[in-house]
C-alpha cells in the first residue's frame, strides 16, 4: 500500500505574526518557517502505518518555493521514503493545490492520502475536501483515529458534540486533527539518511494546472486592540448592553 502525504511550509507556530506595514500580508522575511503542525501529524500517521507493516511506501509532497525542500526533508527524516516538490513562486490557493495533488495522484496511484486538516497560516481547511471531490474519493476529515481494514479504513472524526466514526473504502482521503498522534522527533541518523533519499522537483505546468489565484486579498490588518472593559451597575444594564450594544442577544 502506498500512502501520499502533503506537507506545507508555514510560519513556525511559535512566531509572533506581524502584519506588513503596507497591509498586503504578513511579514515572512527573516521569520522561522516550519512544517505545518497538522501536516506533521499526517506524516507521523503515515510512518506509523508503514512501521506497522500496513503501508509499503510513504511519499511526501510539498508545493511552493524551493525552500519547501527543507520541509520535505524534515518529513523524510521522520521516516518518509521519497519526496516530490512542486516548485512555484506563485501564491497557491487550496483549489490549485488540490488540482496539482490530483495530477500527482493520477501518476502515483496511492491507496491513501493523508493531509493536515488545515494549515496554520491561512486556516482555509479546504484542500483535503476539494481533492476528494476532484478525485471522487471518500474523505474522512478531522481524524483523531485511523484504523486500516481490508480495502477500507475506519476514521474517527472529531465533530461538534463528539466523535463520529466513518468507514471509507480505499482509496481514500484522510485529514488529520491534533489528537491523531504525537509526531516524533527526527533521530540524527535519520536526518543524515534523509539527505540521500530521492526528491523529485516538478512544476504545476507538468500537470496542466493553472495556479492563478482565484481569490484576491484586499487588505490584511491586525485585530483591533482590546479596549478596557466597563463595570455595569445592574443585570438589567448588562442585558441592555448585550442586546443593544453588542447585539449578541
Amino acid at each position, binding site marked *: 500500500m502506498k500512502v501520499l502525504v502533503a506537507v506545507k511550509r508555514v510560519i513556525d507556530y*511559535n512566531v509572533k505574526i506581524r502584519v506588513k506595514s503596507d497591509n498586503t500580508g504578513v511579514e515572512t*522575511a*527573516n521569520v*522561522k518557517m*516550519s512544517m505545518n503542525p497538522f501536516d506533521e501529524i499526517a506524516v507521523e500517521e503515515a510512518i506509523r502505518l508503514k512501521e506497522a507493516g500496513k503501508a509499503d511506501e510513504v511519499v511526501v509532497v510539498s508545493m511552493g518555493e524551493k525552500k519547501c525542500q*527543507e520541509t520535505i*526533508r*524534515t518529513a523524510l*527524516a521522520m521516516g518518509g521514503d521519497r519526496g516530490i516538490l512542486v516548485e512555484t513562486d506563485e501564491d497557491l490557493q487550496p483549489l490549485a493545490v488540490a488540482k496539482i495533488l490530483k495530477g500527482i495522484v493520477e501518476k502515483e496511484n496511492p491507496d491513501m492520502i493523508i493531509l493536515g486538516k488545515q494549515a496554520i497560516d491561512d486556516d482555509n481547511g479546504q484542500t483535503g475536501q476539494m481533492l476528494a471531490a476532484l478525485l471522487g474519493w471518500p474523505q474522512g476529515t478531522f481524524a483523531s483515529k485511523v484504523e486500516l481494514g481490508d480495502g477500507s479504513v475506519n476514521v474517527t472524526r472529531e465533530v461538534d458534540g463528539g466523535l463520529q466514526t466513518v468507514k471509507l473504502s480505499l482509496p481514500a482521503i484522510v485529514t488529520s486533527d491534533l489528537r491523531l498522534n504525537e509526531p516524533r*522527533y*527526527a*533521530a*540524527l*541518523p535519520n*536526518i*543524515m539518511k*534523509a*539527505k540521500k533519499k530521492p526528491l523529485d522537483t516538478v512544476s504545476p505546468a507538468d500537470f496542466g494546472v493553472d495556479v492563478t489565484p482565484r481569490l484576491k486579498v484586499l487588505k490584511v490588518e491586525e485585530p483591533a*486592540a482590546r479596549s478596557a472593559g466597563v463595570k455595569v451597575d445592574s443585570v438589567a444594564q448588562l442585558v441592555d448592553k448585550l442586546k443593544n450594544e453588542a447585539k449578541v442577544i
Partner: protein
Amino acid sequence: MATYKAPIRDMKFVLYELLEGDKLCELPGYEEATRDLVEPILEEAAKITEEVLFPLNRSGDEEECQWNEGKVSTPAGFKDAYTLFREGGWTAIACDPNYGGMGMPKMVNTMVEEMICSANLSFGMYPGLSFGAYTAMHGFATDELKDTYLPKLVDGTWSGTMCLTEPHCGTDLGLCRTKADPQDDGSYLVTGTKIFISAGEHDMTDNIIHLVLARTPDAPKGIKGISLFVVPKYLPDADGEAGEFNNVSCGSIEHKMGIKASATCVMNFDNAKGWLVGTLNKGMQGMFAMMNQERLAVGIQGLGLGEASYQGAVEYAKERLQGRSISGVKHPDKPADPIIVHPDVRRMLMTQRAYMEGCRAFGGWVSQQLDISRKHPDAQRREEADEFVQLMTPIVKALFTDLGYEATNHGMQVFGGHGFIREHGMEQYVRDCRIAQIYEGTNGIQALDLIGRKMPDKAGRLLRRFFHPVQDYIEQNVMDDELGEFVQPLAKAFGRLQQATGQLARVGMGKPEEAAAGATEYLRLFGLVGLAYMWCRMVEVAKDKQDGDEGDFYRAKITTARFFMQKLLPQCSSLFSSIMAGGSSMMELDEDLF
C-alpha cells in the same frame, strides 16, 4: 518567566556567513557535514532542547537528585528525556563513525552543546561527561577496550565520568592517593575515594564507566606517577552487556548551589577491577585530552546560560510596565512604559547581547580551528590550528564563564525583585553558571595556564597564531571608511594587549609571582580583544547586507558591535593599568595579617 528559543539564525550567521562553515565538508572525514545536513540537525536540536530539555530545567532544580542507600535518582522526567535524547542519536553526534558515531564536526557540535546548556545544564552534564570519557578512551585506550566500551558510550546506553578529585587533592592532582594494584591477568584492582564526580551514579543508563586517576604501588611520586584506568560500575559480561557488580559505589551526593539535577557524587572504589588506559604513569595525557575538550565545553556552558538569561530578560523588559521613559511617554495607551525604554535596562540587555553573540562567534572560531587541527590534510595547517586551540582553551573557559556569570546576573537584575524569586527561573541561571567558573580548573588556574604554559610555549609561537591574523586585519582595515570606526578601538586594545604581553613575559622570567599576579586581568584583556576582533569581522559581513530582506538582523549586529566597542571594550584600559602595576601590593601583606 524564563523562556528559551535556540538562536538558530545567529548560529547560522556564525557558521555560514562569518566562518566558512561551507568548507567543513572539504575536510577529510567531514564530507557529510554539508549545509543542507547541518541546518536540519540544528533545527532538530532546537526542537529537542526547547520542547524536551528546557521544561525540565526548573523542576529539576527544585527536585534535585536524591541519594538513597547508594542509589541516586534523577529528577522526574530526566530518565525519559535521556532515553529520547539517546535514541535520537544525540550522544553520538561528534563521535567516530567506526564506533557508531555521527562524525559531525566540532563546529556543529558546539552549537548543539550551547543549546543543551541553555535549555538544561544539569541534564547536559550527563552526556557531556560521557563524551569526555569517550574522548580519553578513543585517544588512548587499546583497541580491545575501545571495542568493549566505545559503542556503548557512543549510543548512550552506558555513560561515563572522569574521576580526578580526591578529598585532599583538587587542583594539585599529583597528591592523588587512589591506588591500582596490578593483577596477573593484566588488569588492576583500584581502591580509593573520589569526590565531586559528576554523573558518578544515576538511574539513566545500564552502566557507568569511570575513568579514574590512580597510582600503581611502585609509581614515582607526584604527577609523574599518575596513571589512568577505566573502571566500570558493572563488569561487561560475555555478551558485552553490564554484568557483575564491580565494587564501585556512591557514598553520598553533594548539596550544591546550582546544577542541582546533576548528581555530584562521592565514589568509593573498593578493589574494583580496572584496566590501564594509555601508558603507565602518563595518565595525565589522556586526562588532558579529555580536560581540554571539557574546558571548551565549560566555556560554552557560560555562553549557553548567558543566552538563556538574555532571552528571559528581553521578554520581561518588553512586558513589564513600570515608570515612563525619561525622554517622554512611549506607550500612552498603557498605564506605564515597558522597562525596555530605560537606559539602565538597555545597558544590561545590550551587555548580555554583545557578550553572548561575541562569545558565540569566538567559540565558533575556536571550534573551526579544532576541526582543522584534527582533519586538515596539510600537517602544517593542523599544527598551526592546534596551537591556536591550545592558546584559546583557557581563554574560552574562563572568559565565557565569567561573562556568562555577569550576563546571568544582569538578566536577574532586569527582573528586579522577581529575579530573586525562584519561580521566574532567572536566579537559577546565576546559580547554575557559578560552578562553570570553578570546575575543570578554576578560572584562576586557566589564567595561570595562559601565562605560564601557553604564553612561553615554543618561544611564543602559540601567541602568534592569534596576534598575526589580528595584526594583519587591523593593518588592512583600520583606514576603511565603514570598518574604521570598529577597527580603531580594536587596534587600541590590541596595542595594550601586546604591551601587557611584553610586560608579563619580561617580569615572568625573573619574578614569576609578578606575572601571576596579573594573570586573571591579562586573560580577560586577551579575551576582550578576541571578542573585539570577532565583532569587527561580524560588522564586515553585516555592513553589505543591511538593505536586504533581513536588514533588521544585520543592522542589529552593527549596533551591537558599536555598543561593544564604546561601552564594553574600554574595560581594557583599567585591566591594562592593573596588569602594569604589578603584584607587589597584593603579595606584600604578611600572611599573619590576613
